[in-house]
């Protein structure tokens, strides 16, 4: 059967291919509020949180978004990862998820393949508990050395705090997973004002002409919405930690994305379909049993 143009046949949905999805289907620009994941056979945590942020963003007018997903494994994964439960208020699944399966997978929380399920973080006050959990999981399930686990939790903390420091009406989403004990992926996404709007609020910043420039400026030390000298270090330190642990980072905001690969200390930028907020994917080799 020939799949419709909007489908993503045999696609791995991750932080990069999420943009392919938006390019083909873009519910932000069309009346059709559907993410058609027909044919998708794998979804990474960074894509899960981006999808969650997109659905909540679209749902601000009270309407639900449809996610069409046919693959049985992917449907199970969406349940086990906690994604279905998190997006339930703003998403309708096609075909529907059975409530029995939802309850069953709900009871399995903590035993799922994600180290930390998709979590909706609604205020900064929820962060310390989440970060303690990140440390516990890394140290006791993956046997990370204490300070390696702390480094990663600090990176997560600096990313997540931006959501609440710079937005009044957006929540954030977080997920973390390890793959074959070889690499760890962390996804953090929000649907707030985005980096460009945030930086433009501070008249002391140099003019920000585009989302691309905004990402570039935001990763430099001392550039922030606030003129306070103690601000504007979060994304800078994220990159420092990624560099130290030989990881990679993708920062997406508005209509731009920038990827940093830590064997080369530079970023590559790409124009993408515009989506509100900031979405970050952080990937690093695991230090399991280190």
């Amino acid at each position, binding site marked *: 059967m020939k799949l419709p143009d909007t489908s993503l046949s045999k696609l791995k949905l991750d932080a990069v291919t999420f943009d392919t999805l938006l390019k083909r289907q873009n519910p932000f620009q069309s009346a059709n509020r559907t993410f058609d994941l027909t044919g998708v056979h794998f979804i990474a945590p960074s894509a899960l949180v981006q999808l969650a942020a997109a659905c909540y963003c679209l749902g601000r007018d009270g309407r639900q978004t449809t996610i069409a997903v046919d693959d049985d494994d992917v449907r199970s994964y969406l349940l086990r990862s906690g994604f279905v439960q998190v997006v339930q208020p703003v998403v309708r699944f096609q075909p529907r998820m059975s409530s029995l399966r939802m309850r069953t997978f709900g009871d399995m929380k903590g035993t799922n393949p994600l180290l930390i399920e998709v979590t909706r973080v609604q205020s900064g006050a929820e962060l310390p508990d989440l*970060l303690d959990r990140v440390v516990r999981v890394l140290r006791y399930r993956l046997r990370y050395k204490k300070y390696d686990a702390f480094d990663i939790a600090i990176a997560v903390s600096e990313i997540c705090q931006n959501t609440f420091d710079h937005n009044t009406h957006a929540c954030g989403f977080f997920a973390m997973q390890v793959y074959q004990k070889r690499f760890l992926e962390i996804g953090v996404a929000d649907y707030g004002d985005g980096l460009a709007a945030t930086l433009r609020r501070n008249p002391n910043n140099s003019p920000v002409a585009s989302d691309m420039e905004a990402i570039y400026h935001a990763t430099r030390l001392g550039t922030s919405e606030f003129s306070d000298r103690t601000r504007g270090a979060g994304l800078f330190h994220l990159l420092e930690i990624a560099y130290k642990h030989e990881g990679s980072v993708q920062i997406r905001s508005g209509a731009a994305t920038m990827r940093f690969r830590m064997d080369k200390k530079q970023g590559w930028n790409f124009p993408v379909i515009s989506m509100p907020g900031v979405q970050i994917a952080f990937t690093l080799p695991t230090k399991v049993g280190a």
Partner: protein
Amino acid sequence: MEKRFLLREHGKQLWTREKAKEIRPQLQGMLQVLNAGETLVIDVKGVEVFDYSFANEFFAKTLLSIPVDYPGRFLVVENLSTYTRENLEKTLESVGLVMIERKGKTLHLLGKLHPADQLTFDAIVRAKEPITAAELSSQLDVHLTAMNERLSKLAKLGLVRREKGTSPAGREQYLYAVLA
């Protein structure tokens, strides 16, 4: 007089700027009751980690407030682990601040400081009592004007205290001191 602020009482793992915002007023309250020349020690014993946002809000903001709101008071950190020292140092460097760390009886500086300023600080510590710019200039073989610039910088960073004294000839002069 010396007061101690036990950071561990607020947690072993200190996350977020919000957490620091809750705690900092207590630190400020302690600074308020100190007189010039007195010291507030932040004891970090038992604290395993703080993130950069916490460190910026708690340490850096307090350091920035000292020359303005609490001139002459010393803020000192003790019992840092290798990990917390590294992260505090990175935080201070990113803001261009310097802080005194005390290990036993030894004082040294954390943060980004020009080696010449570090030498000047060390010379004041070695003097064990207030010392003049002229004495330091002669000791370190540095022109008096340059020495005055260094001392002014150290005083602005809250690392040394400037007090008025009288020279043997009866002239008014400034003396520089670190915490006792």
